[in-house]
């Protein structure tokens, strides 16, 4: 009995180490403006990559959402009314997780992607064009 209890307690103690990843998601509108608009604080660290990859100089944060996604579970991340994502985490450990994401424009599924996400290594998704700009979604493990 004592042995069994010890074993169960060890398993329970081990379980939290698997961790529940926290995913931050954001929807950004990238545009070219003259003069360029100041970058919102939440996007400051992403701005150099956004400029370089997408070729725009101004960025607007249309919405953001942070959610814990339990391994094995799926969650909806809805940073904006129109652009959102369904995220499922299959594995998590240390400072990374494996996730499967479905990226939606309204009811329309655009892409399904599976990625290993490391901390401070965001996933950028180039979405539909909007007006004279471009919608970009961001997912980051926090």
């Amino acid at each position, binding site marked *: 009995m004592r042995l069994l209890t010890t074993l169960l307690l060890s398993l329970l103690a081990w379980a939290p180490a698997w961790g529940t990843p926290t995913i931050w998601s954001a929807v950004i509108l990238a545009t070219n403006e003259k003069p360029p608009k100041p970058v919102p604080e939440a996007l400051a660290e992403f701005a150099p990559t956004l400029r370089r990859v997408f070729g725009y100089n101004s960025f607007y944060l249309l919405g953001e959402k942070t959610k814990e996604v339990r391994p094995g579970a799926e969650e909806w991340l809805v940073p904006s009314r*129109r652009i959102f994502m369904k995220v499922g985490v299959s594995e998590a450990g240390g400072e990374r997780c494996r996730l499967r994401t479905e990226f939606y424009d309204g009811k329309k599924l655009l892409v399904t992607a599976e990625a290993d996400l490391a901390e401070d290594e965001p996933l950028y998704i180039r979405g539909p064009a909007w007006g004279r700009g471009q919608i970009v979604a961001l997912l980051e493990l926090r």
Partner: protein
Amino acid sequence: MNPRDYTAWLDGAASPRQARRVERELGAAAREEKESWEKIRVLLREHLKPCRLEHPDLINARVAEVLAKPSAKRIQLAPLHPWAWAGGGALAVAALLAAVLLPSFPPPAEESALSRVLSARAADARMYVTAFRAPAGRGVVVWIEGAGYIGPEEKVR
């Protein structure tokens, strides 16, 4: 003979099937046996009187005292069935094997610092999807070509 059937038959509480079984086993003696038991019952009822207690109040008080005492019953855990031990052992072995044999997650340190896209698939054949590492930056990009256009008058926020 099943003693339970027998006593039920003597008391007249046996089901027809129980009664048939007992009477078949007792044979001719069945009727005699039942009659003698009836006689004993009548005699007991007539002659057996409750005994007189010398100090009924004292006894009642002691009984009440014992009943009122909180029970110091020791909680005993049911002993584990051998199958439970076998199950626990199998679980421990499975956990050990999983930890040793399954591929480790996260991957080795040099790989774990970087994100990577394992697969990316467009939902529509008119779209084209590619994935790459962000040049000179942090992170990975899933680039959808042909994802459509949202008019400036439409709300996204």
